[in-house]
């Protein structure tokens, strides 16, 4: 249903309808931003990359054909290519554990008003949840990029093996293997972190 809607929007956009383009951006920016953030572990990079992705989409939308495949898969492929480029570019100055990013994420997530009005779990639970999220994100950032992208696409973007194979341009067997190894690596990192936290 969503794909049909997006297909119609793409056709309208190609016909020069500016509102259709705006609709596409509003529909997909959150998913692309999250994908970029989970991969880069940096809100600033994620924002820049999301913007780059949509600029690229805008420029190359003429090359997308509805019959070739789902727009979401095409968009994810494009995003993944830009992420790989970014990963190669920033190889020198990459920092595996960004405390600042974690703090900023914490600051950006809820305003003071929202915090006061938030009827959810109590402060301790929320803090524990945030700590856990930070720990998982930090562990994810330390997984090797090939495995990380497979895990993100599967467990966060909820894509099936076939779609991931299209995005990563590898056979399905390789996708399964990467997801498997990625999850195991992540599990090792998380259990190590837990042990370290327990010792402190």
């Amino acid at each position, binding site marked *: 249903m969503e794909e049909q809607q997006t297909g119609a929007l793409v056709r309208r956009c190609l016909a020069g309808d500016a509102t259709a383009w705006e609709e596409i951006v509003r529909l997909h*920016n959150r998913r692309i931003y999250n994908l970029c953030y989970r991969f880069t572990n940096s809100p600033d990079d994620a924002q820049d990359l999301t913007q780059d992705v*949509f600029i690229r989409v805008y420029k190359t939308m003429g090359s997308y054909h509805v019959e070739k495949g789902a727009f979401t898969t095409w968009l994810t492929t494009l995003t993944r290519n830009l992420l790989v480029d970014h990963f190669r570019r920033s190889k020198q100055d990459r920092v595996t554990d960004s405390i600042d990013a974690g703090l900023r994420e914490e600051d950006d997530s809820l305003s003071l008003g929202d915090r006061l009005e938030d009827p959810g779990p109590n402060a301790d639970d929320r803090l524990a949840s945030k700590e856990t999220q930070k720990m*998982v994100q930090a562990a994810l950032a330390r997984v090797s990029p090939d495995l990380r992208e497979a895990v993100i696409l599967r467990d966060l973007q909820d894509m099936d093996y076939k779609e991931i194979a299209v995005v990563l341009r590898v056979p399905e067997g390789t996708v399964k293997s990467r997801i498997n190894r990625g999850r195991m690596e*992540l599990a090792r990192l998380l259990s190590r972190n837990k042990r370290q936290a327990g010792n402190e």
Partner: protein
Amino acid sequence: MNNDPKHGMECSEFEALLAEALDDSLAAGKRPAFDAHGLSCEVCGPMWAEVRDGMMMVQGLAELEPPKNLVHNILAATSRKEASAEAVAEEAKLGWLERLQRRMRPALGGLMHSRFAMSFAMAFFSLSITLTLAGVRVTDVANMVSHPTTLRKNVVMGYTHVEARVTSYYENLRLVYQVQARVRELKKSATPAAGSGGNEKQQNRKSVPNDGGRPQQYENYSRERDGSVIVQTYMRHQGAQI
């Protein structure tokens, strides 16, 4: 981890099937053996639990809210690109003259204002009347400018004319200097007798002792070019150095 099969499954096979088991895509026939191996193997059992927990934690990561200005920035960036792309495409269709006119338009935009245009029109009108009254024909000027050979000839003629005037001026000046020098020589040759007599007188005066200590007045005569005599008078005090 060992290679001994437990419940018909080796640890390496168990590990390879982890992803499918976690995604519930494991073949139905393999599920019992997989579960049994996981329960009985002291290595694979905890590993299974860790991987499953890790996956659930990743899946439990909250979806982040993108920055509020993200959509606006994207739309602004793409609309700028669209505008520039349209401008380039449109410009590519135009001829070179039209492109030049378009580029000049901002520079000349102010001058095309009605009051400036009126001023230019008045100035042109005045100039044309003045030229007509002075007998200058616009066609002559146009012909002169339109033919490059005529233009070059005029430039060469003008240069030659100026050069000739400068040369004749300096030739005349040289003649004048030569005549003056000759006259000066003639004067010099005519004056030596008078000059030598004066020197003798001065020598005689110097030999006379100055007894009063009073300043003495000397007179010196010389003849100028026009024949007039200039008398130079000066005071000399004994013992003073001149």
